[in-house]
């Protein structure tokens, strides 16, 4: 695999990919800096329109840098100042799987996958049999002869994944590689990608924390064109610094302040048993966020006299009730709770409820 090649070439620079980039898209600008170590996978997550695809397009050379520098294995491939450098996409050693699959409509699935290798001089028959292997790996062993117009959406996406990987790049950029796939297929492709990307320097945009956790070493959260948090995937997901990061991690996040070794937000007061969290709450008054899973929250209707100041118990007003596969998610003005469908029947938007959260199920994280 090319990943080994990439790693061995990266002698001069600890990072295989190093980017500091600013670009402007109409009235929106992206300004980020990051590095990816040789063989490492960096996941990029963030809201729609945050600038994720823009970053990949700049790396791939499809959008030009307004300011900054990009190096691959120590070689500058793009630089806005000094001796200006602008390596065209095909000479960067970087392959991009774009957000649109954009399979070549006039080529069969096999020819699409073989396109990269054939372009780099691999013999036609060899490239074609390699393409067949790739198609088998993405679960489409019989689709070789079909045109993109004869494939389903998920099949097209998989062919596009195969096409990008078959090009054996030094650096691969994946923009939502598992989009449009059902859970079964997605998990198969995720496993395949996990194996195939080992050793290949990768930047992957995804909207699914499961993908990020399964595929990436590090996670970078982008908001409005800026990096708001980055670090090892599990760490970021466990301690989301922003609301977006928390939502991505599937966690509830309430912002308050440290108070008396606990967390205080409006009427609600939370205590925790987590050592790291306790350390953060030591100084009264510092802004602090409490994070927890909605599934861990117990929801009840308020009984006659509730001690309004009891720790880890607070009043809230239901805003939305969203059915989920196993029950109902009750969204309130302060945090959400997963409840059974039967219980949800007694609630409606506006209902006053009491939420409870065990101290071992809540953690505190600093506010960015």
């Amino acid at each position, binding site marked *: 695999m090319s990943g080994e090649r990439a790693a061995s070439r990266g002698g001069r620079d600890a990072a295989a990919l190093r980017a500091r980039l600013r670009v402007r898209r109409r009235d929106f600008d992206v300004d980020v800096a990051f590095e990816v170590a040789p063989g490492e996978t960096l996941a990029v997550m963030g809201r729609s329109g945050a600038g994720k695809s823009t970053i990949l397009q700049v790396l791939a*050379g*499809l959008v030009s840098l307004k300011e900054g520098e990009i190096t691959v294995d120590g070689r500058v491939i793009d630089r806005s100042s000094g001796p200006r450098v602008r390596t065209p*996409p*095909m000479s960067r050693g*970087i392959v991009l799987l774009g957000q649109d699959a954009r399979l070549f409509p006039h080529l069969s699935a096999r020819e699409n996958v073989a396109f990269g290798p054939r372009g780099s001089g691999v013999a036609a028959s060899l490239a074609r049999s390699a393409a067949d292997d790739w198609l088998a790996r993405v679960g489409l062993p019989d689709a070789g002869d079909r045109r993109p*117009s004869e494939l389903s959406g998920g099949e097209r996406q998989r062919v596009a994944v195969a*096409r990008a990987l078959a*090009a054996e*790049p030094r650096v691969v950029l994946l923009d939502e590689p598992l989009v449009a796939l059902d859970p079964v297929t997605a998990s198969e492709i995720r496993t395949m990608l996990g194996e195939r990307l080992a050793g290949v320097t990768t930047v992957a945009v995804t909207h699914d924390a499961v993908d990020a956790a399964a595929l990436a070493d590090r996670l970078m959260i982008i908001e409005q064109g800026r990096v708001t948090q980055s670090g090892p995937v599990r760490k970021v997901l466990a301690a989301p610094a922003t609301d977006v990061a928390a939502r991505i991690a599937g966690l509830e996040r309430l912002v308050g302040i440290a108070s008396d070794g606990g967390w205080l937000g409006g009427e609600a007061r939370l205590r925790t048993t987590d050592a790291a969290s306790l350390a953060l709450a030591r100084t009264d008054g510092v802004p602090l966020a409490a994070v927890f899973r909605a599934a861990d929250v117990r929801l009840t209707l308020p009984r006659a006299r509730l001690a309004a100041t009891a720790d880890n118990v607070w009043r809230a007003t239901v805003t939305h009730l969203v059915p989920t596969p196993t029950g109902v998610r009750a969204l309130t003005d302060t945090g959400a709770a997963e409840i059974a469908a039967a219980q949800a029947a007694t609630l409606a938007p506006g209902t006053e409820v009491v939420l409870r959260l065990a101290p071992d199920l809540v953690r505190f994280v600093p506010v960015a």
Partner: protein
Amino acid sequence: MTDGRGGYIPRSLVVPAAVGLVFLLVPLTALVARVEWATLWQDVTSETSRAALALSLGTGAVATAVCALVGVPLAIVIARSTPRTAALLRALVTVPLVLPPMVGGVALLYLFGRSGWFGALGLPFTTPAVVLAQVFVALPFLVLAVEGSLRSTGVGYERTAAALGASRLTILRRITLPLAAPGIVAGIVLCFARAIGEFGATALFAGNRPGVTQTMPLAIYTAFNGAGVSQGTAVALSLLLLVTAVAVLLLVRGWRPGAAR
């Protein structure tokens, strides 16, 4: 995602379309009505007609090949230039289109004639001059048709190919050209048809020498202008040219069916 031919067009479009088609075809029936059947076979198989037809097909094919070789690159360059450059280049390419072919022939004659800048080449009045005249009048058709088609297909797939590491040449060969295939075929058809029907520039620049520069249109002209004869021969030759050209075009279209998408 296509099902059958797809596309939804108002049925009423068929009316103007039919009007157009009828207008193109009815005059031809008027021509056929004037054919002198008695001498048709003789006219069509005469030495002159056979030589002219062979010359027309040969020079037409060569001219079309030359046009494709320089015209497709020119179309690509125009389609992928900035709007300003493209507008200028397009206007320049259009110029020879507007020129009555005869004037084009005069220009070529001035250029390559005895007193012209390239007089030393000795081109006029030779078969290559026929090709040159045909290229001069037919090239703009090819360039403009292909350019329009390239512009419709856009650059999205080219960028995708570049992001997969394909070289510029690979992109051209495997993406740009195949995707523009319908336009290129249309351009080549236009170009071949125009070349094979070319008369004015050829008449002046290449002359009307039987077997050397007398193409079908010139033979038709000669038959038509000959004093004291009826125009039966000219009509017969016209029909021969027409049938042959259509046959050639149908064959060529047959080679690459469907085209992309």
